[in-house]
């Protein structure tokens, strides 16, 4: 997560300039202070008052693009999409959604392979074959019925698996949330999608389909978000992480960090209540008694956890090696 600053490579700078330029062109919503603040964002150290989230150093700029996109959505995309949803029977909508989803399957297979997930690649190839034939060019998702679940893979995930850092969060005009890593990802995905190479009418339907599918989710954001910009950013970044790890069941570091705060807060309350001399017995939770001994202890705990994990890894490796040795000896 601390990559933003180092990660301002030439490419990112170039992209930023490009984004800035396009927003000037398209939106007319960029003003002088946009340029200033986004340029500052690169210099300001994390923790400084202006940078609220180190993953989002260009927040003030991103927010402007975000509200520009919202305007476009409110006045253009949503009305057209609503009309589409009103005119088209649900069955047809599903068929159209399946059709475009099936075309994306090619990209999924490519990225399965690039990530070394060969078994999943074979299954997804099967999905594409079945749906393209029996499923009548993908209009019916027969494969899912047959137990071949749909997988979500794209080139941005592949880049992550290859170790390319996430980079900064960016909101692009007309496109929406992405990251520095997501941009080359999208370029690749677009190139690997047959829809890119067909005529405009098909692309238009594809866009309609995309917007229409997002309808429920966008409504949900409207209902639930106190700050839709932050809500979108947070869920986007978290969900991308989830996709990259294919939803592995272990808890993420972020979730565990949050969990830790609950315990630290307990300890803090404990210390506070100790400081309040001889007041009536404060409500203290039994498990928080064990270490009220401040920050050092906490650091020691996390160090310990880290070394424990490393030890476990080493043990596994050792076991593997000794097994091989045994095999060789025999």
């Amino acid at each position, binding site marked *: 997560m601390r990559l933003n600053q180092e990660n301002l490579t030439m490419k990112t700078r170039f992209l930023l300039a490009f984004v800035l330029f396009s927003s000037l062109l398209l939106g007319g919503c960029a003003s002088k202070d946009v340029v200033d603040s986004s340029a500052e964002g690169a210099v300001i150290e994390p923790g400084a008052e202006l940078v*609220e*989230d180190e993953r989002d150093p260009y927040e003030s700029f991103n927010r402007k693009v975000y509200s520009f*996109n919202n305007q*476009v*959505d409110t006045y*253009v*995309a949503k009305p*057209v*999409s609503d009309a589409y949803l009103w005119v088209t029977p649900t069955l047809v909508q599903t068929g159209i959604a399946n059709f475009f989803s099936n075309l994306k399957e090619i990209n999924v297979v490519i990225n399965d392979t690039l990530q070394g997930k060969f078994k999943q690649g074979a299954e997804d190839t099967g999905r594409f074959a079945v749906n393209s034939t029996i499923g009548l060019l993908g209009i019916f998702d027969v494969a899912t019925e047959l137990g071949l679940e*749909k997988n979500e893979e794209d080139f941005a995930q592949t880049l992550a698996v290859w170790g390319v850092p996430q980079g900064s969060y960016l909101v692009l005009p*007309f*496109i*929406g*949330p*992405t990251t520095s890593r997501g941009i080359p990802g*999208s370029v690749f995905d677009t190139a690997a999608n047959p829809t890119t190479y067909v005529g405009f009418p098909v692309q*238009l339907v594809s866009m*309609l389909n*995309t*917007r229409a*599918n*997002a309808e*429920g*989710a*966008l409504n*949900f*954001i409207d*209902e*639930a*978000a*106190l*700050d839709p910009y*932050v*809500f*979108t950013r*947070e*869920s*986007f970044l*978290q*969900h*991308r992480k*989830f*996709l990259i*790890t294919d*939803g592995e*069941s272990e*808890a*993420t570091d*972020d*979730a*565990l960090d*949050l*969990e830790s*705060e*609950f*315990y630290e807060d307990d300890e803090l309350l404990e210390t506070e209540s100790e400081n309040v001399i001889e007041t009536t017995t404060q409500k203290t*939770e*039994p*498990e928080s008694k064990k270490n009220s001994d401040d920050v050092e202890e906490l650091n020691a*705990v996390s160090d310990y956890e880290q070394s424990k994990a490393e030890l476990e890894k080493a043990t596994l490796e050792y076991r593997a090696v000794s097994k091989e040795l045994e095999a060789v000896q025999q």
Partner: protein
Amino acid sequence: MIIKIEKIQHLMGFFLILFTVSLVQAEEQKTRMVTEQAMPETARQVVEQFQSVLLDVMKQGQALGFQGRFDKLAPAITQSHDLTKIARIAVGREWKKLADDQQQELVDQFIKMSISAYAYNFKAYDNELFEFVSQEETARGGIIIHSIFKIPDDKDVKFDYMMKKKGDSWKIINVIANGVSDLALRRSEYTSMLKRQGFEALIAKIIEKTENYAK
């Protein structure tokens, strides 16, 4: 020109379900729970009892109406979640900067909004199913209950409940849906709002959301 929201499209599908959480396996357990109201023992039981109430509310969703759902859910949510602590962690370091009455107001409004959000989102039942998958212990001594929300004709949604022991019982301190942590989401929002617009604006927004849910 039309917005291409492809990037967020996928993650958004399940937003709908982020609050449309959970259901439970055993019917008997549900009925037993309603009659007995016994204190659940294990972390898993806490989660499953909460889920069974949700399932119940969904099934009777239309008949109950918003207020009916709210009244049914309120005890189930407050008993199974440590909402006071969640509210506190959700504002992070800003908590300490708040006056006592502000802290109290935040907690009160937060609890009201949380229950309203559930009551609003859990209004209908479509044969959804909730399945226990596994349980994981954290280094801190907490427990994570991994479960799956099964929706007919749709992809499964993973629901992870982070549990922390409080006194004798286990409480839910965070819900993670398909990798999106509810608490992390709130925390980003709340701390950002506090910094940018201040406490009054945050409370006003929370109240606005609560009112919209009830409409």
